[in-house]
């Protein structure tokens, strides 16, 4: 049987690999067939039926997203029969959707709205089902708002939560007219296993799942003269923000972003990359300390492998699903929370501002960061360390609200102190980045030499595979680290919580043994975070990733421990990694949670 099949779509002959769907075959010849439930990151569902097409010789219409292309097929993607059916299907969806577009947060970025426009859905459609039913709007979570009245039951969120993330917080319940997307026992999402990763938000075609926005609160703080408002920006925001402002994916706009933030009125524009470097120092030393306890002191209580803790979605996932591994989580806080704790202590005293009058805002590619900022552990400064977390999307919206012509902005630099970063801090935004950054520092601490990789690029930990393993042989150590002589440091990098689950299962059953594991909740790491511009796809994530590594390679300083502001803060304030002040401000503890 030949590997290729040849079919005709709208009269154009096309050859594709066997197994390719009609939808993808059409794409190769630039014929766009509309879809709603289809998403390239997810398995085929075939349930919205918007992509139906006509096949010569078949009475019924066939779903292009689910039908494999076959030899001799003659497909008509836009016949009258197809258009009529499609229009009726869109009309049906609109009839069960609270189509109040002007007051909807997703107005202008809604796939149903776009289709409704394309098919000219008028007012003489079907009976509006919305007033006839009761709907739940779940706005209790600090991260995500779920509005069932806007749900079109495409199940993208369910597939995201289940197969991409392996969480299963969202599921289908009931049937027929009562069918809906629900949670365990219909509980609000903040009470269930939801990790707040926001991958569902990134894929929801309508406004049924959106982030909880804090734009108005931030505006109020900026315009409150008694408040000093500091803002920090996460590594992955600078490589994606432009997308939300009409640019192609993969553009780095660090300087314009800083300029825009200053124009918005923030009193200090600082960089989460700085505390990313700090995380590397603290977490790297924590790893070394654990290795020392295990290999030198033969301490039976030490927990290895150590896993990273900067992804709040991953942290909550572990607290729910693998609470027995809580002690394996690095106690180091995430860069956002290290920043928050330092902003209202070290930084406040440095610039002579009362911490009580300081408002700390962060711009994150993430919805789980909103939750993290609200965790009860995150009051190390005596105040809520981070007051408001905005997603990349929210920042883009603020820039639009302020009437700023983003393109014409001249590049600007971060304020100091806590504005300087190394290339190692930048790559935190990509999967494998924390591992690479940590190895650059840890290897050098132990051996006094740079990691033995060309240009400091530890390519084995980079990439898009869901789980990657790499080991690095440590030799010719400095005298105090002689217990690591000849040790092969085994590392693992995973992104997407389903991959995380598989890695932790392997660790639990003993089929895998590592010293250090980096896990990011989102596919691609933070650059594919739940707070990033919509849409997302593997191609978009790849382009953001290239941008991040480009930013790293262009940095003068590539290693966290060489960041001069890091050197300075240890000298002036923290004294030493894992020291008393660090423990108070930069480390945290975890809470076991229920599995449902």
């Amino acid at each position, binding site marked *: 049987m030949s590997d290729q099949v040849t079919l005709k779509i709208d009269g154009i002959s096309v050859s594709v690999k066997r197994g390719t769907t009609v939808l993808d075959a059409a794409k190769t010849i630039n014929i766009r067939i509309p879809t709603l439930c289809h998403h390239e990151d997810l398995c085929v569902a075939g349930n919205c039926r918007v992509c139906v097409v006509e096949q010569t010789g078949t009475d019924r219409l066939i779903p292009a997203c689910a039908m494999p292309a076959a030899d001799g097929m003659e497909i008509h993607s836009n016949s009258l029969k197809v258009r009529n059916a499609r229009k009726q299907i869109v009309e049906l969806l609109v009839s069960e959707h609270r189509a109040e577009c002007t007051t909807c947060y997703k107005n202008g970025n809604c796939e149903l709205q776009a289709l409704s426009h394309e098919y000219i859905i008028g007012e003489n459609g079907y009976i509006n089902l919305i007033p006839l039913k009761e709907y739940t709007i779940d706005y209790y979570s600090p991260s995500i708002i779920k509005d069932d009245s806007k749900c079109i039951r495409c199940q993208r969120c369910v597939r995201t939560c289940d197969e991409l993330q392996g969480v299963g917080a969202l599921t289908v319940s009931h049937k027929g007219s009562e*069918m809906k997307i629900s949670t365990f026992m219909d509980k609000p999402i903040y009470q269930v296993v939801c990790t707040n990763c926001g991958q569902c938000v990134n894929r929801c075609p309508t406004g049924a799942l959106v982030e909880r926005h804090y734009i108005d609160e931030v505006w109020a703080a900026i315009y409150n003269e008694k408040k000093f408002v500091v803002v920090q920006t996460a590594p992955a925001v600078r490589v994606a923000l432009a997308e939300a402002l009409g640019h192609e994916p993969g553009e780095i706009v660090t300087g314009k972003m800083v300029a825009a933030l200053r124009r918005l009125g923030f009193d200090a524009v600082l960089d989460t990359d700085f505390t990313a470097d700090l995380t590397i120092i603290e977490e790297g030393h924590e790893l070394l300390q654990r290795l020392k306890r295990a290999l030198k002191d033969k301490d039976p209580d030490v927990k290895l492998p150590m896993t990273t803790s900067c992804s709040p979605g991953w942290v909550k996932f572990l607290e729910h699903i693998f609470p027995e591994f809580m002690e394996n989580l690095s106690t180091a806080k995430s860069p956002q929370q290290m920043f928050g704790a330092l902003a209202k202590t070290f930084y406040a005293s440095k610039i002579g501002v009362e911490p009580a009058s300081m408002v700390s805002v962060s711009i994150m590619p993430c919805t789980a960061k909103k939750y993290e900022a609200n965790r009860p552990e995150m009051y190390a400064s005596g105040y809520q360390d981070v007051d408001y977390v905005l997603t990349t999307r929210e920042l883009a919206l603020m820039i639009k609200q302020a009437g700023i012509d983003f393109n014409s902005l001249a590049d600007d630099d971060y304020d100091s102190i806590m504005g300087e970063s190394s290339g190692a801090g930048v790559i935190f935004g990509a999967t494998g980045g924390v591992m690479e950054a940590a190895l650059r520092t840890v290897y050098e601490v132990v051996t006094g030499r740079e990691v033995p990789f060309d240009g400091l690029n530890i390519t084995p930990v980079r990439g898009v595979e869901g789980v990657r393993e790499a080991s690095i042989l440590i030799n010719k150590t400095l005298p105090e680290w002689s217990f690591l002589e000849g040790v092969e440091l085994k590392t693992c990098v995973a992104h997407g919580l389903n991959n995380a689950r598989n890695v932790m299962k392997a660790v639990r059953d003993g089929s895998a043994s590592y010293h250090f594991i980096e896990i990011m909740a989102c596919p691609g790491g933070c650059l594919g975070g739940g707070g990033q511009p919509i849409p997302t796809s593997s191609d978009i994530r790849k382009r953001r990733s290239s941008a991040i590594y480009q930013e790293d390679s262009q940095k003068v300083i590539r290693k966290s421990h060489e960041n001069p502001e890091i050197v300075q803060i240890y000298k002036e304030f923290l004294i030493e990694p894992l020291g008393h002040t660090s423990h108070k401000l930069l480390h945290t503890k975890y809470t076991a949670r229920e599995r449902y």
Partner: protein
Amino acid sequence: MIKNLKRLDLIFKNEQDTEAILEKTLARSNEEIVNDLIDSGLKGRGGAGFPTGLKWRLAADDPADEKYIICNADEGEPGTFKDREILSSVPNKVLAGMAVCARIIGSKQGFIYLRNEYKFLVPGLEIVISEFHELMDRLNLEFRVAIFMGSGAYICGEESALFESMEGKRGEPRNKPPYPTNFGYKGKPTVINNVETLAHTYSIFKYGPDKFRDLGIKDSRGSKVFSVSGDTPIPGIYELEFGMTLQKFVDDFGDGDSKAVQVGGASGFCVPRKKFEKTIIGYQGKLTGVSLPTGGSMMIFNSSRSMYNVLRNYLDFFVEESCGQCTPCRVGTQQLLLGIEAVKRGEKPSGYLDKLLELAETMRLTAKCGLGQSVANSFSSIVENFREEMIY
């Protein structure tokens, strides 16, 4: 030539020769048995009418090691209750059919997917199954049958939703292709047959394909068990030769005042009195008039019945029993129901019925599975034939 079609007593005949029939059948080659089934003209009795022999052959041709045979006893179509009777009076025939199928396709495990409401059949079935297992051992056939209880959803009678349900998932139909004979339960090649179909295979093994072919007409061979209900003095289960006109059926079973017959349950067609003579109960063939396949549900309505109420009742059922995953079925069923109610109340003009007929056609063309596709059958046939009853 007009054939005199008659009532029969084949399926329910109590025959105590299972072991002998199985021995005789299994002594023949797989190819011979399948050819007999194809020659007999037996088609699936669940309603869709797929040729049984062909289905077995497709599964047999798949090279997979692990295969399954499932007896679909989720009898959920409103107005049908024949599978219950077959399973309680002649389960041995059903099991024998499964055993032969297992040998042909190479399956070691079979299941009876039993409708939740038929729980009371379980104790009896379990005794029969354990005797059947002893028989399998005597015949050196490595084959076991287990009962799997459904949970009461109509949609789980749809074969791919049934597999999902058995796999512990939500009972939602799958995309097709792939088809069950290649990708069924647990992703393995699976033959899924209706209870009655399997029972018929027994008769074919015993009496040969020619005897079966002699019954019925053209493309509708053999006999069929009907569940007769509604306005009839003699409701119940009847085995009839296939191919009867609806007029003959009503003459035999009606109360003299029959105004319509719903053939094939809520998902079937409604035939008004004026079309009784031209309608044949059976599969599509080259006959004049219309032939209607059926899973065996025959509901007779006399002139005291409001067809609006009948339709509303069906739609109510579909609104609840749609699995809800695909748009045309989930929203379409609700719109049809609300639509006819709005027309009846005068809130929508009678012309709205035409928009609803278009919607029903779109559902037929685009719904993911047989449930959504067949809502149009009852809707369109009732609205078109009894339009004035919908309005006034």
